[in-house]
């Protein structure tokens, strides 16, 4: 399985949301970006699931993670980062 740092997770989220002029940070929350809507969140889940070889698709709480910190905490809890 791939190993990844927190900053690389931020890059994955940035790409998944297709943010060009705005920057995702560790303090970013869903409400900060119009792009981070329901479909945008699915894009983040898919990007993480692809990177972690299908391991994120089984983590139900990722569906309600509405901030970068929450996403990172979930990935840490499941020993993915």
């Amino acid at each position, binding site marked *: 399985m791939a190993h990844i740092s927190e900053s690389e997770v931020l890059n994955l989220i940035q790409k998944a949301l*297709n943010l060009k002029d705005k920057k995702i940070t560790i303090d970013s929350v869903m409400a900060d970006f*119009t*792009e981070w*809507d*329901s*479909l945008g*969140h*699915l*894009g983040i*889940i*898919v990007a993480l*699931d*692809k990177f972690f070889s*299908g391991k994120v*698709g*089984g983590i*139900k709480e*990722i*569906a*309600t993670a509405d901030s970068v910190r929450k996403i990172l905490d979930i990935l840490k809890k499941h020993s993915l980062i």
Partner: protein
Amino acid sequence: MKARIQAIEYYLPRLCENGQALKKDNPDWRIDEIEQKTGISTRYISGPQETAVDMGVLAAEKLFSSGIKKEDIEFLIFITQSPDYVLPTSACILQDRLGLKKSCMAFDVNLGCSGYVYGLAMGGSLIEAGLVKQGLVICSETYTKYIDSADRTCRPVFSDGAAATVLTFSDKDWLGPFEMGTDGSGYCDLIVKNSGTRKDVVEQHPPALLMNGAKVFMFTMGTVPQCVESLLKKSGKTLQDIDLFIFHQASKLVIDNIVRRMEIDERKVYTNYQRIGNTVSASLPIALKDAWEEKRLKKGNQILLLGFGVGYSWGGCILKWEGNL
């Protein structure tokens, strides 16, 4: 089961809506990105006075125009979550509108995306048990009537449509095995509140469809692969033995991820969500009919059908293709 699909016909409303219509109502929406994710470029919208029963009639009349005899229809299973009335049963109205005989049993099934497979299982069971020889499974939905025009989660995805299927007795096992399931803990993730007797919301807004897209997506990612594996185990087959996979046409995101997670050969996966959208219970029979019309099916093919969604509820089956429609 000793039953087979003899014919399928479907009806789509006249109004076909594309991304430009969404953009006109919602100038801030990035339509290209929405379409890239959903994969859906056109959807069908029922007219203001057009109901699920009306559309079910039009789909079924196509069957009767093609040679199916009304007097041979012994059951009518109407699958809808957008009935004309809370009561009476929409299937009863359909029996009358279609001119089916009075000895025809008729009942509604309130299921969404899994509904078609449940309809096949129930209809097939009635035939297998010897109660009847032939009947109709009609799936018809007008979900768009529940959707707010500014709802970015639901509006770009859902579409209206109806499909009518004739199930008939066969001396060979063409239908099954089946695998169904339920997880009602997810009932709130796809819901029209204030649409029944329970008053969940104080405000008097018209009832609207609410979808927690991420939660429904996670349910799908977990449940669909398990259901496929159970079906294959029941049938003693492998993924490679299946000639065509037809999943509920939820969206590109959903189907692509099922295919990726299960490592299914994408050439064996049929989709038509791009031009039809997500027609809920009607999506599987519409896709099956289109796959046949596009010559994706041959006699003897093994087809895996799988519907999943609202409830949560899911249902899958393997059917052996009899060779015509």
